[in-house]
Every structure is written in structure tokens, then in C-alpha cells.
């Protein structure tokens, strides 16, 4: 009898047995920062279709979720901002792709709530705007709040900097973004990490995502980490 392991050989193997057309997938990252590159590529290669994808952005034409748009595997996106992707625009305007915009904080909190078993929450964000249409509203002390519901996914993809074989994760800098909440909101959460280490090598006091939220983990490879807006300053002549 062998003990259960969360470690899978690579992204392709980690997707074994859990994909079906029409499923809902969460994918971490902000722009191209902190995106699960290996898992997105493996998802594209799997050929699964009609996906609902929950992700703050939709990648750019050649990177990130842009790969899945190009191959027309996404039927619906739930996002806060998709401005950097021409293929997205084309598919949306032609009616091939459904789109649900959420304010960024509402999206983050809906995912947090979903992962925490909270049905919904009332927020001022979006009150009096198109976002409020069709939603229950409450006025408390003169302020209008709208009801937003929790979000979960069949599978969540997250990207961390370091992880151990128990699924404990540590993110790096602004690559953290949506990854911690999405890790909690997937019925199956798969993490890919730059450094996969043995238990004991990460300081328990520094863990961002405890391993209970992670069902499968892989050592990622060939990270590109594309930069969308390379901005620099000149060194002043000393």
C-alpha cells in the first residue's frame, strides 16, 4: 500500500481524467504575470472545448489564455479586463464568445467567497451601474449594496513560485494576484511551481496557500514569463 501523492509528472499527466467539454476552469494571473503557463498549454493540447474560463484577463494573442482563444476552446470568459487581446475582440464581436464582466474586486471576492463556502455578499461596488442589473439590492444606512454570489470551478489552475510535495505554496511578488483565491475555489486545484521541494524545505510560517487546497502539483518547465509593458528608467550618468 502506497501513500497518496499529489505530485504528477507534468502538466499533461496532471490533467488526466478530469477534463470534459463544457467545464468551468479558473486560471490565475494578472495580465501575463503569475499565469499557469504549463497547464494552459496542456489544456490547449487536450482539445477540450466549450470551456467557461474565469480569469482576470484573457492573455494576449500569443500568450496565456490567448492560446485557448486562438484554438477556439473557450465559449465564455468571466473577467474584469480583456483589453490586450485582438483575437478576443474578434470572437466577441462576431458572437462566438460570451463575456461576463465583473469589477476586479468583485471577481476576487466572488472567488474568495466560493472557496470559503460563502453563498454571496453585499457590496457597494457596481451599485447604480450596469453591473447591478438583475441583482438583489439592499439599502443600508443610505448606501445601496448589490448581492454578488460566490464562484467555484471544476478545476483551478494556479501558478506559484515554490511548492512542496504536500501542495503548500509560496508566491513571488505581484505574481500572487488571483492565485491564492483560485486555489481555494477549485473542486480540483492543480498547482504548477518553479521549484518543487520536499516537505520541510519551506518555512511553515511563510506558506501563502496551505496544501489542503491543492490536489495536484507539478514541477513547471520552460517558463517564458513574457512581459507585456517593458518600462525602464535611464541610469543617471554618475
Amino acid at each position, binding site marked *: 500500500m502506497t501513500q497518496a501523492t499529489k505530485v504528477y509528472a507534468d502538466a499533461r499527466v496532471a490533467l488526466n481524467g478530469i477534463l470534459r467539454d463544457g467545464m468551468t476552469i479558473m486560471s490565475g494571473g494578472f495580465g501575463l504575470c503569475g499565469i499557469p503557463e504549463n497547464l494552459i498549454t496542456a489544456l490547449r493540447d487536450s482539445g477540450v472545448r466549450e470551456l467557461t474560463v474565469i480569469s482576470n484577463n484573457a492573455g494576449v494573442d500569443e500568450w496565456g489564455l490567448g492560446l485557448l482563444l486562438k484554438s477556439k476552446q473557450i465559449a465564455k470568459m468571466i473577467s474584469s479586463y480583456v483589453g490586450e487581446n485582438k483575437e478576443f475582440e474578434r470572437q466577441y464581436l462576431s458572437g462566438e464568445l460570451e463575456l461576463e464582466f465583473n469589477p*476586479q*474586486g468583485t471577481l476576487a*471576492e466572488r472567488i474568495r467567497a466560493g472557496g470559503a463556502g460563502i453563498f454571496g455578499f453585499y457590496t457597494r*461596488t*457596481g451599485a447604480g451601474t450596469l*453591473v447591478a442589473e438583475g441583482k438583489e439590492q439592499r439599502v443600508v444606512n443610505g448606501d445601496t449594496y448589490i448581492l454578488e454570489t460566490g464562484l467555484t470551478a471544476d478545476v483551478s489552475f494556479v501558478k506559484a513560485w515554490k511548492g512542496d510535495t504536500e501542495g503548500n505554496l509560496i508566491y513571488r511578488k*505581484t505574481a500572487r494576484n488571483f492565485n491564492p483565491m483560485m486555489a481555494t475555489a477549485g473542486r480540483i486545484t492543480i498547482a504548477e511551481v518553479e521549484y518543487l521541494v520536499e516537505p520541510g524545505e519551506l518555512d511553515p510560517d511563510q506558506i501563502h496557500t496551505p496544501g489542503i487546497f491543492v490536489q495536484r502539483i507539478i514541477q513547471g518547465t520552460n517558463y517564458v514569463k513574457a512581459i507585456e509593458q517593458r518600462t525602464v528608467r535611464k541610469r543617471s550618468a554618475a
Partner: protein
Amino acid sequence: MAWTRDQLAHRAARELRDGYYVNLGIGIPTLVANYIPPNLKVILQSENGMLGMGPFPFEGEEDPDLINAGKQTITQLPMSSYFSSSDSFAMIRGGHIDLSVLGAMEVAENGDLANWMVPGKMVKGMGGAMDLVAGVKRVVVVMEHISKDGSPKFKPRCELPLTGANVVDMLITDLAVFARSDRRSQFRMIELAPGVTADEVRGKTSASYLAS
């Protein structure tokens, strides 16, 4: 002479106070960072998950794991911290950010703001703008006074879909500054750009406001 983009940013920077936590939007608001008075401690928040945003990196020192909300490479400072998107928006929605400077397509005389969507055009999304205007303590808007076709952008009512209802505390345009003491009050014109007359501003504004 109307204010330039940089002069607009400079004027907006005068709204900063010592110790403020501030979120700057994309476009002219980003330029405000260049005009923070050196004697003030101002901490910039980036809603993708950072407090204490530093300047752009030196060439060759860009880190793909370190970007701002405009997806630009940035640097950290000794006092910086990183956090998740939900912690970030807890700061924003929980009223912990003192000031936000945002751009706009339209501002209404009742403080309504429209800055995310033009019907019939491709909509990129609201990003964090709706959360910012709903939760930040004080919202300053910077924009051109009139649109490219010459029509007023400070109007009786917004015609574009709103980002937030009754959320603007101060409006700085290239011609004038409008402010109000609270969100039940009317805007008052408190300042003119150099060489701009009150009559010119009145002529290019369809919103009603109090004269200075």
C-alpha cells in the same frame, strides 16, 4: 492657456497629503507619481497586489513577477509589501485607501462618473475602477474639459454607462478645478488654469456648478 497633461498631473498631486495611501489610475493619473512633493510620504497602491510601488527598473533589471496594474515593469521599495487580489480589494473596498486619481469620459454635476464603456464599441472591461470609486475615501478625476468633437464632458447627466453613482469629490480639467465639500453638495469652480476665463469655462460646460 489650458493645462498640459503634465500640468494636470502636477495639479492633482497638490491633493496629496503626508501619509496618504494612494491609488493612481492609468493615463494622466499615472503621471501624478512624478509630482509627489518630496517632503511628503505618499504610499502608492497597485491593485494587482502591491503597496509601496517603486519607479521603473533600470534597463536589464526588469522582473516579470513585478508589474503594476498597467502591466508595466516596476520596482519595490524598502517599505513595500505584496498581497493577493482579495487583500488588495479589501484595502480598496474597505475604505483604507485615502485617495484615488482616475481618468474619465464624462462626469455629471451630481458626481456620477463614466469611464469604462462606450456602447457599440469594443468594451475592454472596468478592471478595478468600480471598486475604487465605491470604496476609496476621496476620488479625484482628471480629464480634458471637452471631448475631441468639442462637446462638454462635465454635464448635467452622464450619457455613457456609469462607473459609479455620486462618487466624484473633485474634478480637475485642463481649464479649471471643481470641488465639493461632501457628496450631498454641488460642485464649485475653485480655480482656473492660467489665462482661462470663467466665461470660457461656462461656455464649454453643460453641467451646472457654483461660481468661484
